């Protein structure tokens, strides 16, 4: 599976009112969660089939934020990439978990506009949008800081307070 950080409300179908969307189409809002870099790449994370590395990935990304907040993400099968004709490359990530960055980060590359829309359509249909609550995110970051996988000194002051002083 692959993970992409999203805003869960964008995937609701415009507040539940999807009557205006033509049959076989999807709302455009989820496309905003697959915005590419200037060189047409999209950052995703590889999640083991048993999700054994999922918590570490979430904690590593969330630890790079200014403060604790909920973490919305979509999990989708890898075969979506081949269906959309999208290439994938192993590229180190930029989360606060260095080991996770090296092992599990991927870039989707050479994304054309057509491929992007196809990709989002497929993820919308086959993916699963999930929310980790703020409370869970705090617990996860604390867990992996305590385990030595995330450096406490790398957290912002605000985030450190939220995690360790509440």
């Amino acid at each position: 599976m692959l993970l992409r950080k999203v805003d869960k409300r964008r995937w609701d179908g415009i507040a539940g009112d999807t009557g205006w969307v033509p049959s076989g189409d999807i709302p455009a809002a989820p496309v905003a969660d697959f915005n590419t870099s200037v060189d047409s790449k999209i950052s995703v994370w590889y999640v083991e089939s048993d999700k054994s590395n999922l918590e570490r990935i979430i904690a590593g990304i969330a630890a790079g934020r200014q403060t604790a907040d909920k973490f919305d993400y979509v999990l989708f099968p890898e075969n979506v990439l081949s269906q959309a004709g999208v290439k994938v490359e192993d590229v180190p990530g930029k989360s606060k978990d260095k080991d996770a960055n090296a092992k599990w980060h991927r870039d989707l590359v050479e994304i054309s506009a057509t491929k992007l829309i196809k990709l989002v359509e497929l993820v919308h249909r086959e993916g699963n949008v999930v929310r980790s609550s703020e409370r869970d995110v705090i617990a996860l970051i604390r867990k992996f800081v305590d385990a030595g996988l995330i450096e406490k000194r790398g957290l912002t002051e605000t985030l450190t307070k939220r995690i360790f002083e509440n």
Partner: protein
Amino acid sequence: MNARAEEFDDSDSFSTNHGKIIFDANSGTAFSKNELLTLQEFGGPRVPWFYESNTPPIRPRDWIDLGNGVFIFSASVPDMHQALVPARVFTLLQDCYVGQFCFAVPPSEASTLPDVFTRPSEPPALKLDWSSCLAGFVDEEIEDGMTAALGERISNLIRLRGSEAIKQLKELIASNDLSPSVVSHLLRWLGRIKNAASFDSRLKLLCENLRSESAVIRDGASLGLAALGSPKAISFLQKAIDQEKVPELRADMEQVLRELQY
């Protein structure tokens, strides 16, 4: 007096009185004389301030006028400034301490402070209100977890203005001048703030916004209630869940409900 204090006494702009104040608060803290800045540029007398090399200078907008000769020194002020604010101020104002980065100066104590605290020759550049809180956060979408500055400003505003600020926020939300995304983040911060005095008014506003026409705002209200962590919200949340028409949002509200129940 330690060696560092003697170094400061050499400064022609630094009185012994101020020196004692600062060093009472910072014994053993190392500062470089080269990093000395003054507030003179803001129109006040030359009271030296000392910074770590990686901290930003105090800017005029960091002064907030509370009226009646009362000012706070707040906003993006880094850690070091807490110690740099004269210890005498801190001692006097323990009951008025309004936040980790925020010192309030009540009128009754204003005359005891260095002039720079009470009589800047130019009016402060910033008023503490929702407009100033939201400066820089007017974009349609704000990324989750990237609102620390917004949270600090809201926290200061709520602590100082209390229910009055909540009332103003209610009017601001009703005006529809803010994007749902911004309102969502405001509501989340209302839940995160630690301030008992405004608890009831924050709870009430969060519960009211569970009935917003915007799913994004309803979500923000629910997230704010999760952060608030009060069982008082359970009945309101249960009712909102019963009425929620967006299945995904209803599931998220149920997750919040479970957190509040257990």
